[in-house]
């Protein structure tokens, strides 16, 4: 089976090179610190971490995007297209036989014409896998982020929502609170009452000796922020309703676009993102994708890795298999890894193991 998977991977990789990508390699053993900084502690449950006696914690490559972006930011061409293939390693905490080690074949595009690049990646994957009749799913986290940025509320609330875009449950809880749909929890009400009773410094002193690195200034600053937040009015009901509507938007792409155009006058901040969505649909159509039927879900991709910030997509086979291919736009990641520079980037991966399984079943 491994030989069949490798053969499938090589076939897909060759097709990506043929499409104009330059081959790129990445280390298997990566420094853990940058990945931990990007993904947070959760990644420890999903990646194999090992200790190097001299270099500290190292991680078995959980995906290629980060090392490929790092390599590109060190002096890649502009625009650039890369293809890679190799194993990734995912630690599993369940006994259900999910793969710990599997091949990925990937394609990453660094190009300032974002809608065209989005369409290029999606259309290329769709074409390569056309014989498998996969079910596509698409979304656009950029629209959601723009909607949050455009809310008429405090910067702090917007930042809190922005930070939890990829944690839908917490995002929803925060939104419910900021919109006044959920009551202030009793613990918070009691806290606010206490904070309002005296100056922060006096309260800190009364609470006992302060231990640890988090300083009295840190505590006072957040106490002030909490009181300020309590004074801020709730997000207006019509505006909140638009955001709830957006979170649950699921429709074929063209219908979704009309819907978004319909709400844009009331939420003007999303207009540039909706323009990009429209441009992408145009580019997809030009690449032979039927955008009248292409499914769109505004919340798609919100539970995946925490770096997609625009177009997201996946291609699904039978329900009992993970997505056969997936990808998305990650402009902000290039800024984080680029030491001050950034470039719009989009990419995706195909799992040749799953492709080989589906093709094997067909033959």
């Amino acid at each position: 089976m491994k030989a069949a998977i490798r053969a499938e991977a090589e076939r897909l990789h060759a097709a990506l090179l043929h499409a104009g990508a330059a081959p790129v390699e990445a280390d298997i053993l990566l420094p853990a610190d940058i990945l931990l900084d990007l993904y947070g502690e959760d990644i420890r449950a999903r990646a194999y971490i090992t200790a190097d006696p001299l270099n500290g914690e190292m991680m078995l490559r959980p995906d290629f995007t980060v090392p490929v972006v790092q390599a590109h930011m060190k002096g890649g061409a502009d625009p650039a297209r890369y293809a890679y293939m190799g194993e990734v390693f995912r630690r599993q905490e369940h006994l259900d036989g999910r793969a710990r080690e599997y091949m990925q074949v990937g394609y990453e595009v660094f190009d300032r014409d974002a809608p065209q690049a989005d369409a290029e990646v999606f259309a290329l994957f769709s074409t390569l896998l056309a014989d498998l009749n996969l079910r596509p799913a698409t979304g656009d986290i950029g629209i959601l982020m723009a909607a949050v940025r455009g809310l008429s509320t405090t910067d702090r609330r917007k930042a809190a929502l922005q930070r939890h875009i990829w944690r839908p449950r917490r995002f929803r809880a925060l939104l419910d609170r900021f919109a006044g749909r959920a009551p202030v929890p009793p613990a918070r009400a009691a806290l606010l009452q206490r904070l309002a009773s005296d100056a922060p410094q006096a309260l800190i002193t009364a609470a006992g000796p302060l231990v640890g690195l988090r300083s009295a200034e840190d505590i006072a600053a957040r106490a002030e922020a909490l009181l300020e937040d309590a004074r801020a009015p709730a997000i207006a009901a019509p505006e909140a309703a638009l955001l709830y509507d957006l979170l649950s938007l699921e429709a074929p792409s063209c219908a979704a676009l009309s819907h978004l155009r319909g709400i844009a006058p009331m939420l003007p901040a999303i207009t540039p993102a909706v323009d990009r969505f429209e441009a992408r649909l145009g580019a997809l159509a030009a690449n032979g994708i039927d955008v009248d039927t292409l499914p769109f879900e505004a919340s798609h991709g919100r539970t995946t890795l925490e770096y997609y910030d625009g177009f997201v997509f996946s291609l699904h086979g039978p329900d009992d298999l993970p997505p056969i291919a997936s990808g998305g736009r990650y402009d902000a990641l290039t800024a984080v890894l680029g030491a001050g520079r950034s470039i719009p980037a989009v990419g995706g991966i195909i799992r040749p193991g799953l492709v080989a399984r589906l093709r094997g079943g067909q033959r």
Partner: protein
Amino acid sequence: MTRAMLKIGVPSKGRLMEKTFDWFGARGLTMVRTGNEREYSGAVQGIQDVELVLLSAGEIPRELAAGRIHLGVTGSDLVRDKLPDWAAQVVDWAAMGFGHADLVLAVPAAWIDVDTLDDLDAAAAAFRATHGHRLRIATKYHRLVRDFLTANGVADYALVDSQGATEGTVKNLTAEAIADITSSGETLRANHLKMLADGLIHRSQATLYAARRADWSGRAATLAALAARLGLAVPRLSG
């Protein structure tokens, strides 16, 4: 032909061992240590074909998972922390009503702005922005704590390992918060820490577990006899 023995792993010392012996004793099964004081061997009287294995409480989860013992007594905190997908590996057959301890999240008492996980999350975000690294939580219960924080949507923290004197890590500036076992909260208070209102991660107690992966062939009758003596239903070991 040797009889198929049913092995039961029990903590090898301290109060946990004594309480376990008492618990089985109250149900007509006498556990005794055999050999000299320092030798870790024992026997179960009052039932046929059950062998006592004395082990460190911390090793009992691993021995259960490997199926080297059929039954084992240990803290539910240890099983949940050490065994991924624990319910697929062991059956929690009986909560034994002793060895109570709570795994809790605690922060400095002087953090007047932090009472809940919600506050901790917001404080962690601000801390990272101000101090340039993620807010550190010292614990030895990595899996339990990480799963709990993930489920509750807390971000921008890092776990740091602490195998003992965890309450002291905040004062020593190696962590900003802790997650540790407490029974009365006194050690927390003595170290100027307070528990978060919704920071109860797990309420642990000594529990009798059955190993799904152990070789149960030829032992069904022994297990049924044991279940009858303990007044428990026979555990469902598969599925």
